[in-house]
């Protein structure tokens, strides 16, 4: 993650410091590089709108992460968009990255098929390495709900990847 101790600098400095991590997170949530960039841009815009009023720059990443997750949730909440997106993902060749690892491709594909909150919970827990409590704060739910989301998501992943070599 970007250095959380970044001092209040110019907007450009903040963008350089945090955008790459934000794009990676958004990509894991959406599976779409272009969409990830748009979400991060949008998230940055929303936070920059408050930057003038931001009292503690060291927590910028915390807020940016929350905003990215919320924007991804909002994006997929538009069901028509989600349906079209999932259709596109399903039809797309599995060559979005240079990786030839079958497990990686398959897992990411199953991950993208999860309900958005399950997907977000798994990404926050296992990529962002947040605790249940921290994940709950981002998703604005209880830690118990996080555990349930992760459990159900993991179950789906296991079922979807059954028989895959590790």
């Amino acid at each position, binding site marked *: 993650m970007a250095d959380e101790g970044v001092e209040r600098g*110019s*907007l*450009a*400095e903040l*963008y*350089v410091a945090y*955008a*790459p991590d934000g*794009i*990676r*997170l958004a*990509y894991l949530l959406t599976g779409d*590089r272009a969409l*990830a*960039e*748009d979400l991060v*841009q*949008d*998230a*940055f*815009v*929303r936070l*920059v*709108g*408050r930057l*003038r*009023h*931001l*009292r*503690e720059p060291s*927590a910028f990443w915390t*807020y940016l992460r*929350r*905003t*990215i997750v*919320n*924007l991804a949730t909002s994006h997929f*909440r*538009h069901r*028509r*968009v989600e349906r079209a997106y999932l259709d596109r993902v399903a039809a797309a060749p599995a060559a979005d*990255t*240079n*990786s030839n690892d079958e*497990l*990686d491709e398959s*897992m*990411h594909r199953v991950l993208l098929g999860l309900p958005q909150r399950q997907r977000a919970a*798994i*990404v926050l827990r*296992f*990529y962002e*390495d947040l605790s249940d409590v921290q994940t709950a*704060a981002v998703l*604005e739910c209880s830690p118990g709900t996080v555990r349930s989301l992760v459990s159900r998501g*993991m179950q789906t*992943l*296991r079922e979807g*990847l059954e028989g895959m070599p*590790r």
Partner: protein
Amino acid sequence: MIDEHDVREVLQRRADAVPAAPIDAPTAVRRARRRLVLNGAVATVAAAAIALATFAGIDAIRSAPIPADPPPPSPGVLRQNGEVLHFTGVPLESPGDLVAVNPETGEERVIVEDLDTVYSASWSAGGHWVAYETEGPDGDRELWVVSASQEPRQVATGASILGWSSTGAELATIRLTSPLHRNIAGSTLHTIDPVSGETTDAGSIPRDVGDVTSAPAWSPDGTRFVFGSRGGSIYSVDARSGARSLLARLPGQRLDSVDQIVWSSDGAHIAIVNDGEPGGTYVMDADGSNVRVLLDGYNATGVAWSPDGTRLAYADPADPVVWVASMEGSAPTEIGPISAPCGDAFFCREELTWSPDGSRIGFRNAMQGSMDGSASGPGTESIGVSAIDADGRGEAERIDDLTYRSWDGGWYSCECGRG
């Protein structure tokens, strides 16, 4: 069987595989600022539009099928008792109704029910109409109007900023070229007859003026608009001919984006906020002369003209103090610190407005989140609202948020920290 360790490894590899495209920070920041300006400009333009003339100087509008005499039939007054427009849902999160809230009683009256989201809404002059921007099923922004006698009607598609004419008989929109990044350059001007829904093309924002950073601000007489570009250049565009001229270059060093341009209601002066490093706050005559530096090294948290256009209130963010500058040329007067303290709030946003009779200045302080970056979800925002006599006498008194919003132009939505 797949376990958590496998998931961690795969996610990390996938994230690492995201191409490390060069980050064009300056461009991203400029986009961000433009969008911010535009988001804020919706309210600003709407407020300024209350004083707009009938756009009589625009040839295209002259040809619009709106009879000048007799005036179009009045649809009846929709706004009552200074009502405030409010979206009961959470924009982009949960649906709700567009309601009119009585600032005295808090009673809500449904104007349009069951909307997915509302980005902005504004009363027309006289309160006959409401224009509101929402989102269609495909994610496109849509502009709708509704009156006391007319069901909601969609009048435009796509991101836009809008303003009502001073009569409330027409709606001016600036249709943006991009719904996401909201570039202004190349955007087009239109006017809309809310009764018929007919749209008239009124030209476009020129592309060759450089990096436009502010929303165009219509003059109260509707004959021209001004906008700012990076570096502090202020341009004026004749709404009749489209002719553009350099109105002024702001004095100072390291000027950045012009974030706010506000006309006085009498059309005699223009206030400008430049969000540079250090930036500044300025006021000038409408012809670009007599540029006065109100804040040097600080951009005001907001500027607001008195209803008669003779006094400009602005807040010094370094030490939340409200100043009032008279356009008669006397030195600005410190009115007083009327801000609620920001305390441990992570975000602290300050804004100000005038009471309709010009006797008081309202100050609103919105705080959200905590220093440790913890919860900032819906309902966590703390609002401090106060008012002080505009002559600087007396102490600041708390007023309720609805009263402030009624003074401010009559629209608010959830300011939840959903990001």
